[in-house]
């Protein structure tokens, strides 16, 4: 299996505080990789480095290599705007753009990129909504505001929005922590299905979720990657003492 995303010696800072230390990690095609660890361990910082969103924060810096589909997105002349279409992101709180309708929310990534109105646009929107199992629920509400949907639907809308531009990798930053258990279950089901279409890296503070849906799990602590292995191994026979302490609930 070849890796679709490789991280080499990734370091990140907030001002003078180092948040990530020498992270090297490979993610394989069509897998779900979970990132777990206690608050402040750097897991959100890590995935925000994968789409170069980290450096948008004032005084934040990142250094190292992140190779996506063979190209290093941190190479000197690379424009963050250009690479972000390849790496989609879904955030913790569902946040459809309030001034856009359901349809427009899904279409916006495409419109920005240049796909104008027309049959092609409608087809892609429909396809994305079907991928996230939202199409049947919203096909009669396509022109209502994106914020008029329920919480769980809004999050699936955000996933559809991210998928519409056909990214290679989908990053998810604790996507279900603001949702109720039923919506959470639906999204976990969805994510497991999406694996066939796109590679997923998901940050979660919920270990059971990681154990349920991911193929590989990475454990972060204080900005360092402690252990990275198949999920089954991590949760049954972790190699590092610190990993063991975390998953058995001794801290964090």
């Amino acid at each position, binding site marked *: 299996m070849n890796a679709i995303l490789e991280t080499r010696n990734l370091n990140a800072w907030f001002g003078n505080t180092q948040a990530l230390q020498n992270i090297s990690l490979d993610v394989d095609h069509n897998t779900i990789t979970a990132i777990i660890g206690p608050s402040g361990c750097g897991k959100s910082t890590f995935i925000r480095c994968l789409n170069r969103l980290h450096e948008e924060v004032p005084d934040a810096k990142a250094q190292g290599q992140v190779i996506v589909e063979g190209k290093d997105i941190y190479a000197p002349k690379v424009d963050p*705007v250009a690479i*972000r*279409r390849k790496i989609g992101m879904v*955030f913790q709180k569902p946040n459809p*753009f*309030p001034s856009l309708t359901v349809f427009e929310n899904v279409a916006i990534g495409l419109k*920005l990129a240049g796909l104008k109105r027309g049959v092609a646009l409608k087809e892609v929107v429909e396809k994305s909504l079907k991928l996230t199992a939202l199409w049947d629920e919203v096909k009669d509400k396509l022109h209502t505001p994106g914020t008029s949907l329920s919480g769980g639907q809004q999050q699936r809308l*955000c996933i559809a*929005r991210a998928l519409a*531009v056909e990214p290679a990798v989908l990053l998810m930053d604790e996507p279900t922590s603001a949702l109720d258990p039923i919506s959470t279950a639906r999204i976990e089901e969805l994510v497991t299905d999406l694996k066939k279409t796109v590679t997923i890296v998901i940050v979660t503070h919920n270990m059971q979720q990681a154990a349920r849906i991911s193929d590989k799990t990475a454990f972060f602590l204080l900005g360092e990657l402690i252990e990275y292995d198949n999920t089954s191994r991590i949760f049954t026979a972790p190699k590092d003492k610190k990993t063991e302490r975390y998953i058995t609930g001794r801290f964090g």
Partner: protein
Amino acid sequence: MQIKHNTKNKLREAHLADQIFYWVLKLSSIALTLVLFLIAVFLYKQALPAIKNFGWRFLHSSVWDPVKDTYGSLPVIYGTVVSSLIAITIATPLSIGVALFLTEIAPKHLSKIVGFLVEMLAAIPSVVYGLWGIFVLAPWLRRDVEPFLASNLGFLPFFQGPPYGVGMLCAGIILAIMITPTISSICREIFHTIPQIQRESALALGATKWEMMQLSVLKSTKKGITGAVILGLGRALGETMAVTMVIGNRHDISLSFFAPSSTMASIIANEYAEATTDMHVAALVEIGFVLLAVTFVINSIARIFISRGFRWTNLFKGAAK
């Protein structure tokens, strides 16, 4: 027994003091509302002779003749409207631009400094702007800007006629300078209420920074921006000294922006102290009453657009008029 009695007295005294305190505060507050009401009443009373004499004609007649003692306020209404429109046209894009620059582009320390500078614009007294207008802005307009406009855009009636320097355009520009801090500081506050995650979602989709600004910031704040602009309009309408000093003070209606004109506030400032006949005074007060009513309406409309829980204190750091 005696101790109990003393305590009872003390409690009654304290209760009485509390009551007095409460009523002093309450009455002073009601008195404030009363002042507002009285202003309207007094102005109306003083304007009554003119109101009775001219009726509605006052608002659409362009004859302002102290010698014949006939007065029509159309020229000053026209002057007020046009100068304020020029001001809004210039100030709105400028203010929104400044607000966007400060919230989206500038690094923190730069935005503090520039933000301070923009607020200092609001602190300069109106009369100082007027002084600068007479001796710096107007000559520059007369020498360089107006001839330039006349030769390039002279086919439009707005840019025809002799370049005086002082006049409608000069007043409009100074007004624009004076209302920019108001509009931009309200816009800044509104932009700050947009959660960071909205901006990040746009960027994560591959939007450029400008596209992010349109999508996440401008599109969702249209209502607030409108309120800010209306508030700026309200200030422009009532601005007195700077306008009086640079508008040229003539009672004509002319399409040209170069022409001297008058506004409602400027005519009161100019003529009130020297008005001889009662009718002249009443006419001027009637203009004041109309100005009061208009400002009242415009400011009320603005509030509909700007949501509650908004830091109104910022508005009061405004310029002296």
